[in-house]
C-alpha cells in the first residue's frame, strides 16, 4: 500500500524548500508568493516505509479561487492521503494559524511544521510549542527548512505519526466552519501560545526598502539593478564562453580532424561540420547559461520581484494588468514556459490571457544566446552591450503594447491585486547552485536531445544531394529557402539565415547550431563568416525577427494548455509572426534608406 503525504500551507511559507530538504528533489524555490503552481511529488523513506511526498501550490484558505489554489484544493479533496504536513511561517502565525483550523474540518491527520524559526527568533517572536500542541491536538514541530534546523526531528515525528495513521483516508467534504468562529478561537489560543514583542524596531528590510521603494528613485534604481545584473552576467560569462569556444576549436583541429582523416568526405563533413560544430557552438554557451541562471536565482530568492510588482503596478494598471504580470515578464527572461504557468496566480481570465499574450515577447535565455553571438560577431565591443540592451527594451515595448491593445477587455474584469510583500532574504549558496545547475541541466538535456536531431537534419538538408555544393541553391535547403525568399528578402534576411529561422521555430537554442552547420564553421570561425556576410542592418533585422516571431514550440504548447483554448494559441502565434515581419520590414527598409 503506497503512502502519501501532502505539503500544505500559505504561499511563500517554505513548502518547496522543505520538500527539497526532505526528498533531495529539485523543486523551484523563490521568495515570491505563488512560485509553485503545479503538483510535484518525490519519494521519501520514513522508517521502513516509502512515502510519496507531494509539494502543492500555496493556499490562502479553502475557498481558493485562483487556478493554483484550485490545483492544491482539488488534490487535497480528491486524493486519499495518509495525512497533511502543514507548513506555516512562524513569524506570521497570528494570521496563518486560521488555515490549520480550516483544514481540521477535512478530518485528515495533520502535523504542523512551524517554519522560518530562524527569522522568528531574530524578531524575538516566541511560540510555546507544547501549549499550541495541546490546543490544536496535533503534533507541532519548529523547523528552519532553509538551514535544515529541526528537520531530522521532524522526520522522526513524521515516522511516528505515519505509524499511527497507516491507512490513507479521503478528506471529508469540506464543511467549512464559520470563519468568525475560527477567528475568536484563534485569538484565545494565540494569547496563550504566542509571544510577539510589542514594539518591533525597523528591520533590515525596512531600511533597504526606504531606498529601493523610494517614490521617485524606485524605478530608476530598478532599471539600474537590471542593467547591473546583465553587466555581471556579460562580464563573467562572455570571457568564459570565448575560452570554451577556443578549447573546442583547438580540440577539433588538434585531435578530431586527424582522427577522422581516413573517413569518406561526406562522413567527415557530417561529423565535424555537422555534429561537432553545431553542438559545440551551442555548448560554448553553457558558462553564460550557468552564470545567467545563478543571477536569476539570486533575484528570485531575494524578494525583489515582489518589489518590482509594487513599483510597476501603477504603469501596468494603465494597460489593464497589474504588477504580477510584470513579474512574470521578468521571470520569462529565464524561460517563457514557467512564466506562462506562473500566470495561474491571476484570477481574472481575461487578465490571465492578456498576460499570456505578452509573455512570449520576453527575451528568454535561449534568444539571449543568439543575440550574444550576433552582437559580438557584428558590432564593436563598445556597441554590443547597447545593442543587446535595445533588444530588451524592444521586448518590453512589444509586451506593453500587446497588453495595451487588449486593455478594453481586461479593464472591466480586474482582479484585485493584494499580495504579501515578503522580507528580503539571502539565498544560501547550496540552494543557489542547485537552482542554477537544475536550469543548466535542462539546457544540457536539450543539447543532448533535439539539438542533435536538429543539427543532423540541417546537415542533411544543406548537403543533399551530396554532389551539390553545401548549402547552395541545388541542395534541399536551397530549394526550401528559395520558396521562403519572397517573405524574407524584404527584411534583408538572406536564404541561409532563413533556414536557421525555420529551425529556430522549434527552439531558439537550435539557431546558432544550425548556422554553424549551414556555414560549415563553428565558434570563432562562424563569427568571422557572419561578420563578412552581413552588415549591421541585416544583422539587426535578423535579431528583431528572432526576438519576436515566436518563443518556441513548448511555449506555444504551454499557452494552449494553460488557456485551455487553441484559439488563444493561434492568435498569439499569428500576432507574433505579423509583428515580427512588419517590424523587421520597417526597420530594414528605413535603415537602408537612411544609411545605405
Amino acid at each position, binding site marked *: 500500500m503506497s503512502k502519501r503525504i501532502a505539503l500544505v500551507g500559505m504561499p511563500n511559507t517554505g513548502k518547496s524548500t522543505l520538500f527539497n530538504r526532505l526528498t533531495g528533489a529539485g523543486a523551484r524555490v523563490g521568495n515570491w508568493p505563488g512560485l509553485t503552481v503545479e503538483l510535484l511529488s518525490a519519494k521519501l523513506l520514513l522508517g521502513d516505509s516509502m512515502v510519496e511526498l507531494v509539494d502543492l501550490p500555496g493556499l490562502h484558505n479553502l475557498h481558493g*479561487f485562483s487556478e493554483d489554489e484550485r490545483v492544491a484544493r482539488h488534490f487535497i479533496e480528491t486524493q486519499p492521503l495518509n495525512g497533511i504536513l502543514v507548513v506555516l511561517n512562524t513569524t506570521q502565525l*497570528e494570521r496563518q494559524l486560521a488555515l490549520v483550523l480550516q483544514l481540521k474540518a477535512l478530518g485528515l491527520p495533520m502535523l504542523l511544521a512551524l517554519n522560518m524559526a530562524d527569522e522568528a527568533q531574530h524578531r524575538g517572536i516566541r511560540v510555546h510549542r507544547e501549549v499550541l500542541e495541546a490546543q490544536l491536538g496535533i503534533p507541532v514541530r519548529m523547523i528552519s527548512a532553509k538551514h535544515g534546523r529541526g528537520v531530522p526531528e521532524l522526520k522522526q515525528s513524521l515516522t511516528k505519526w505515519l505509524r499511527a495513521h497507516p491507512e490513507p483516508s479521503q478528506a471529508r467534504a469540506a464543511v467549512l466552519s464559520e470563519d468568525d468562529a475560527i477567528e475568536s478561537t484563534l485569538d484565545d489560543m494565540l494569547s496563550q501560545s504566542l509571544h*510577539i514583542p510589542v514594539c518591533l524596531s525597523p528591520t533590515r528590510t525596512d531600511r533597504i526598502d526606504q531606498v529601493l521603494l523610494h*517614490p521617485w528613485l*524606485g524605478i530608476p534604481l530598478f532599471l539600474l539593478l537590471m542593467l547591473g545584473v546583465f553587466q555581471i552576467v556579460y562580464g563573467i560569462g562572455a570571457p568564459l564562453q570565448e575560452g570554451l569556444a577556443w578549447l573546442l576549436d583547438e580540440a577539433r583541429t588538434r585531435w578530431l580532424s586527424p582522427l577522422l582523416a581516413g573517413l569518406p568526405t561526406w562522413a567527415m563533413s557530417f561529423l565535424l561540420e555537422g555534429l561537432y560544430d553545431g553542438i559545440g557552438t551551442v555548448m560554448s554557451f553553457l558558462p553564460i547559461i550557468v552564470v545567467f541562471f545563478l543571477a536569476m536565482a539570486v533575484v528570485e530568492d531575494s524578494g525583489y520581484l515582489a518589489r518590482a510588482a*509594487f*513599483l510597476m503596478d*501603477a*504603469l501596468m494598471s494603465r494597460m489593464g494588468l497589474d504588477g504580477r504580470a510584470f513579474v512574470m515578464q521578468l521571470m520569462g527572461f529565464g524561460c517563457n514556459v514557467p512564466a506562462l504557468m506562473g500566470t495561474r496566480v491571476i484570477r481574472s481570465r481575461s487578465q490571465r490571457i492578456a498576460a499570456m499574450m505578452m509573455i512570449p515577447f520576453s527575451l528568454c535565455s535561449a534568444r539571449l544566446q543568439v543575440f550574444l553571438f550576433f552582437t559580438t560577431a557584428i558590432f564593436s565591443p563598445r556597441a554590443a552591450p547597447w545593442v543587446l540592451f535595445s533588444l530588451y527594451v524592444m521586448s518590453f515595448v512589444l509586451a506593453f503594447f500587446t497588453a495595451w491593445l487588449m486593455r478594453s477587455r481586461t479593464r472591466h474584469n480586474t482582479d*484585485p491585486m493584494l499580495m504579501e510583500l515578503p522580507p528580503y532574504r539571502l539565498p544560501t549558496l547550496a540552494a543557489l547552485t542547485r537552482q542554477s545547475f537544475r536550469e543548466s541541466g535542462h539546457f544540457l538535456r536539450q543539447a543532448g536531445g533535439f539539438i542533435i536531431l536538429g543539427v543532423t537534419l540541417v546537415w542533411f538538408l544543406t548537403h543533399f544531394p551530396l554532389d551539390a555544393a553545401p548549402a547552395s541553391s541545388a541542395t534541399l535547403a536551397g530549394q526550401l529557402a528559395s520558396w521562403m525568399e519572397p517573405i524574407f528578402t524584404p527584411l534583408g534576411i538572406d536564404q541561409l539565415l532563413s533556414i536557421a529561422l525555420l529551425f529556430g521555430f522549434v527552439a531558439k537554442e537550435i539557431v546558432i547550431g544550425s548556422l554553424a552547420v549551414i556555414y560549415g564553421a563553428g565558434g570563432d570561425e562562424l563569427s568571422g563568416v557572419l561578420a563578412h556576410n552581413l552588415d549591421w542592418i541585416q544583422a539587426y533585422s535578423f535579431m528583431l525577427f528572432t526576438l519576436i516571431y515566436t518563443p518556441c514550440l513548448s511555449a506555444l504548447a504551454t499557452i494552449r494548455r494553460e488557456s485551455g483554448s487553441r484559439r488563444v494559441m493561434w492568435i498569439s502565434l499569428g500576432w507574433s509572426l505579423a509583428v515580427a515581419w512588419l517590424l523587421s520590414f520597417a526597420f530594414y527598409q528605413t535603415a537602408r534608406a537612411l544609411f545605405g
Partner: protein
Amino acid sequence: MTQTLALCDLAAGRCGTIVRIDAGLELGARMRALGLLPGRRVKVIRRSPFRGPIQVRAGQTDLIIRRGEAAAIMLLPCPAEAGCA
C-alpha cells in the same frame, strides 16, 4: 474626532483599527487570510506615486494593496502620536 476613514485615504506612517470591510465574499476571504479583518490594526508604510498601490503592515505581514481595494477597508485612525503599530 473619531471618524472612520478608508484605508486608501490614510497617510503614510499613520495607523488605524479596521472597523468594517465592504468587500465581496472572495476578496473578503483573501483579505482575511492576509490578516485584514475587523479589529486588527494596520499601518500604512508607504504609498506609491501615480495612484499606484499602498504598502500596509497588518501584524507581522507586509502587504501590497491597490487603492481600489483599500477603499473597501474602513478604519478608525489611531491618534497621530500613537507609537508603533
